[in-house]
């Protein structure tokens, strides 16, 4: 009985360790630093890193040409420039809440976005 039990425990441990290693090797390369626009402007250590920013699209800053879109995202205090070269999501408009993921480039001071999500208002009911 004991030997059987030991076998089950050992094989489970091996599998869990294998899964663990899998996660460990992936987590580090998938870091996205979640920051507000003000924090990004203030923190130079974020240059060249992947960041995730949420905020409102500033009205009047949206420029589009040849499929590349530039706009500013604000948290009410500071705003940061975002460059995005994919199709804009449906809910995207001025003043919409967006979540941007991408690399914060040191040279241009802009976030080169890889993904852009405009919040779906019904799902994220804001609290009064």
């Amino acid at each position, binding site marked *: *009985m004991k030997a*059987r*039990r030991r*076998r*089950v425990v050992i*094989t*489970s441990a091996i*599998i*869990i360790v294998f*899964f663990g290693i*899998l*996660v460990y090797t*992936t*987590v580090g*390369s*998938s*870091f*996205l*630093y*979640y*920051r507000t626009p003000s924090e990004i402007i203030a923190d130079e250590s974020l240059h060249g890193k*992947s960041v*995730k920013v*949420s905020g409102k699209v500033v009205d009047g800053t949206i420029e*589009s040409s*040849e*499929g590349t879109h530039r706009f500013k995202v604000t948290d009410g205090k500071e705003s940061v420039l975002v460059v995005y070269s*994919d*199709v*804009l*999501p*449906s*809910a995207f*408009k001025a003043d919409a809440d967006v979540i941007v*993921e991408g690399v914060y480039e040191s040279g241009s001071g802009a976030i080169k976005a890889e*993904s852009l*999500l405009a919040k*779906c*208002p*019904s*799902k*994220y*009911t*804001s*609290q009064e």
Partner: protein
Amino acid sequence: MAKLGELTIWLSLAVAITATALFLYGLKTKNSKLVKAGHAGVWALFVLSGIASLILLRAFLINDFSVLYVFGYSSKDLPLLYKVTAFWGGQEGSLLFWQLLLSLFTFMFFLTGRKGKLAQYALTILIAAQAFFLLLLALPANPFKTAPMVLSDGMGLNPLLLHLQMVFHPPTLFIGYAAFTIPFALSIAALITNQPEGPWVSRCKRWTLFAWLFLGIGIFLGSLWAYDELAFGGFWAWDPVENASLLPWLTGTALLHSLAVYEKRRMFKIWTLILAMTTFLMCILGTFITRSGIIESVHAFGESSIAAYFFWFMMLFTLGFIFLVIYRRKDFKGEEIHSLISKDYGFYLNNLTLLFFTAIVTIGTFYPVITELLINNQISLGPSFYNKIVPPLGYIYLFFIGTCPLLGWKTTNTVRLIKKIILPLVISLVGALSIFFYWEKNLWGSTGFFICIFAGFTTLEVIYREISAGMKYGGNLWHKIKANRIRYGGLIGHIGIVVIFVGLIGSSFYSVQKEATLNKGESLKIKDVVVENEGLFEKEEGVSADAVGVNLALKIDGKDKGTLSPKLVYHYKQEQWTSKVSIKSGVLRDIFVVLAELPGQGESARIQVKLNPFISWLWTGAIVLFVGTMLSFWPEKSRAKLSEVN
């Protein structure tokens, strides 16, 4: 009327608390009169929740914008169907809907068997859970809150939600969420009454199957909606809200399988109970995630009033449950696994993988919260995290699906197993290699197809072998399947999962896309597909929206294949553009076209074309999975009749 609604909620809360107390005290003192009185609470709660829901529904139908919830999610020009579905468009309404379902399921549970101490305790838990939802509805999430001033028209429903899938997606999800309360209540009751064995196990399995089926349909409809409406070319973005519905489905899958082993082999007892609790908690957690905004910003945690309720409710139930499990651990000790090459162990590995996957998704979803709390540095994990981890885990899981039906309970004859496994391995290797060399040299993709062919082949072979062996003695094929419906339903479900995997692999590893601005007459070529701009069009879209779009002539290998017309729709009320994609769906691939923007020079249009191989397999596989599940779920009663006839 709103006042009456509010009153009904408070009355229900009083009934729920009283009934819980009557049950607990009556069961403790063995006073059957008190317990009988508690029974009245079961149907009273269902009737009262029904009345409250009807009052809210009426407010939607008569455009009563003095009710803030109606004001927030409806408007005069909203079509009737969407006025009804706006009921669950927001937090308050969806909680009321959840309560309605929970009271209905409690009532159904009551009608299908209330005898015995275990069932009584389960009813107690179910009513206590209702008390929690009613407390939420009475205080922080009151759907009947009225406006202090007169409001002439509502804000309207988000135009993205004006979609047929959105009519059915939320209610099916909520049916799943609410129904998962019953396996949980049965588990607690089994622990309290110390009954490791008994008819409750199969009852628990049926409710799990039911909940799991609806949760699955809900996720399926949500993905279909995202693919059709969100215009990003995919169907799943590892968004916290999506993860919230996936988590209970994963633990529910594990629960379903471990219940099968519990019933058949008297194993995995504590494990099964823990899974029932985890699944229930995941349903609550899902609502917690979607409704509290905790993932968006940790700071919302303190602000959101509903979050604190959920937190304490979860804590209370978890701690109570853990205490009970520790207290009863000796009585619920199950049989041990005998062999590493057995179905028992296969189920165990299946569970382990699923739970690990659940842990990954939970960690991924809560990573920003965890890092903020621990190192005061909010870090989230991007989709790349999931994209790297999910394929290996999924493949391992799929391999288990393929091998498990070949294994025997308790032990397996290794030589026979090897004989059975060689042919499928060779066939899938040939298949995968041809895909690799003749289609595209994609290692992850080909590996995936290798396992898909393997699992599909072994499962089909098992079905064929068993049925043809049975048919030797004559008889009706349908009767054979019906007599063993749980097994065949499961195997058909596995086929569905394999087909889903084909869709997942095809669309994630082999999709290609191109984007270009096309003037009238210009065309874009991607692989063998050519689309040509035939000019713009304008169109009225109902009373509240207008559309502009582009007609694209589709040619494949030079042959005309019709027109694709992606468009942009403008909704006056919300001042919002939504993109309507145009999809040419096929067995081997979807041609997915989005109108990105209209630059405004002549009839030029910027479009994006995406080729999504096998994506329709995803939807087909899901339907096969649901058909299999329904077959397993088909009532046993007719089976008893069948054996009488024979």
